């Protein structure tokens, strides 16, 4: 909460933060109302968003990797990010400033995942067809996105780009009111299912013979992961690679048991995004979109991972 374009001394931040509880602290502050509003209306929601979005994206990444039995899967594999991007584009380009892009981003990410699910469920080998359909649906929505960009005005284009690159600066209490509870609920649900993910990461035949209703349980995991990813994406834009890097870091440290991987991914993901956001806000005199930071760290890591994929920690 200390870091930001407007310098507030740390002790004043602390006072401003506690002032609703202890009104006497206000007297010590030079510009009490502005300090308090900066802390409560700008920095606290942003911190909460980074915390929850980091946790949500990492947990959904870890869960989907277990579910798809593939450690290279990320939270956007089901076409979710391209759906969300197109939704945001529609709202920013055609509906103007008055309609919040979050709602239409959320709606279209759900549409994309539903599309993937309906196309894929008819096939025998669900996993492969889900991944394949995810790629196809992504490509389709990317084309639609390009079309929207083509029609966009330069101003709309700029605000669309900042959203596409991941941007936590939109955090305010109004958009958070809906997405924080959704992220919290889904993340807690997936963390509770952490041991079940071990069983779900077995082959379908094995999981079935162990007494698991694989269809329903997989649907539940996909539903929760979609819910939290789209809730995070809707407010924070597309923040790539967290769901891939964080679970892998955790597996390197503690092994593959999802009883540890899932909850620790939540903790590490939250910390990682807060750190990335702090860097994004403070490294330059202007704000760099946080999605750029996560990708700058994420992609070299991904290459390192591919080079080293001798199943050392898997």
């Amino acid at each position, binding site marked *: 909460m200390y870091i930001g374009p407007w310098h507030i001394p740390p002790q004043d931040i602390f006072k401003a933060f506690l002032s609703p509880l202890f009104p006497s602290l206000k007297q010590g502050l030079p510009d009490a109302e502005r300090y308090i509003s900066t802390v409560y209306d700008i920095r606290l929601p942003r911190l909460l968003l980074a915390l929850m979005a980091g946790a949500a994206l990492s947990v959904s990444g870890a869960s989907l990797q277990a579910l798809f039995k593939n450690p290279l899967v990320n939270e956007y594999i089901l076409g979710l990010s391209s759906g969300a991007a197109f939704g945001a584009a529609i709202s920013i380009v055609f509906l103007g400033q008055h309609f919040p892009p979050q709602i239409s981003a959320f709606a279209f990410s759900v549409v994309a995942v539903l599309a993937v699910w309906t196309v894929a469920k008819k096939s025998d080998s669900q996993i492969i067809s889900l991944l394949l359909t995810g790629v196809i649906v992504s490509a389709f929505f990317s084309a639609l996105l390009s079309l929207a960009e083509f029609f966009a005005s330069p101003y709309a284009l700029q605000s669309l780009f900042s959203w596409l690159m991941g941007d936590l600066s939109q955090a305010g209490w109004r958009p958070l009111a809906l997405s924080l509870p959704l992220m919290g609920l889904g993340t807690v649900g997936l963390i509770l*299912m952490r041991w079940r993910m071990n069983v779900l990461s077995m082959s379908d035949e094995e999981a079935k013979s*162990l007494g698991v209703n694989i269809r329903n349980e997989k649907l539940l995991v996909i539903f929760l992961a979609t819910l939290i990813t789209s809730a995070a994406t809707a407010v924070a834009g597309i923040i790539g690679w967290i769901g891939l890097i964080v679970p892998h870091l955790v597996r390197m440290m503690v092994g593959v*048991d999802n009883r540890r991987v899932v909850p620790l991914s939540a903790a590490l993901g939250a910390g990682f995004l807060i750190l990335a956001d702090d860097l994004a806000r403070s490294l330059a005199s202007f704000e760099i979109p946080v999605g750029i930071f996560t990708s700058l760290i994420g992609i070299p890591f991904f290459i390192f991972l591919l080079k080293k994929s001798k199943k050392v920690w898997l």
Partner: protein
Amino acid sequence: MSIRIQDLRYGYRNFSLHVQSLAFESAKMTSIVGPNGAGKTTLLKCLSAILPVSKGSVFVDGRDVASMPEEERAKILAYVPQEHSSAFNYTVEDYVLMGRAAYITLFSTPSSSDVRIVQEALEYVGLSRYASRPYFQLSSGERRLVLIARALAQKSDILVLDEPTSFLDPKHETEILDLAKKLAVEKKKTILVTLHNLDLAVKYSDVMVFMKKGILVACGQPDDILTETLLENVYEIKMHIIRYNGRKFIVK
């Protein structure tokens, strides 16, 4: 627990399995033999409801397997696959713990009593010292034992093993089948295995089932049903049966 099959049918493209009637008794070891593509594995998967079977074709103690919920079925019947592959290298203990899935609800994690059951299962198959080793560091013989330990953790009365001895050396073959026999005798479990090694099948089985092209050819105690005519009929090559120490041996 006993299994009864009644007019079981399962088919895909150019193969169809049809077993008119067959029963497996408890505390007995039954081996299913026959050439490749005879439908042995398909039969086991149908019994274990891994492949969808129509209602009214497989009964365990009179209860229809097809209409049982998954977790209930897993408590009475455990299926041991030929091999296991995974993108994640779980430890032996974590792996065997998955056998408890039917007893653990969706949103909870294994309790200390689950862990104790897993330790007992590992001890029974003689792998206690490997509990914290990664699964893929074990040899094929040890991996089979882990798969069996996981099935034991399911605490089911019926154990279905799909070719538990394939790719194993004679020592591990014997070890696995000794273990299966011990489970039938000591723990009164109903054991079903598919085997390719006929001599081992004769040695270990209480009952042998011969299959060919999806159909049951013969069924009974090895000593009673094993003849040269039957072998030639099933495998389409000439084999001889010789007696040594009162046991039948097959010479190709």
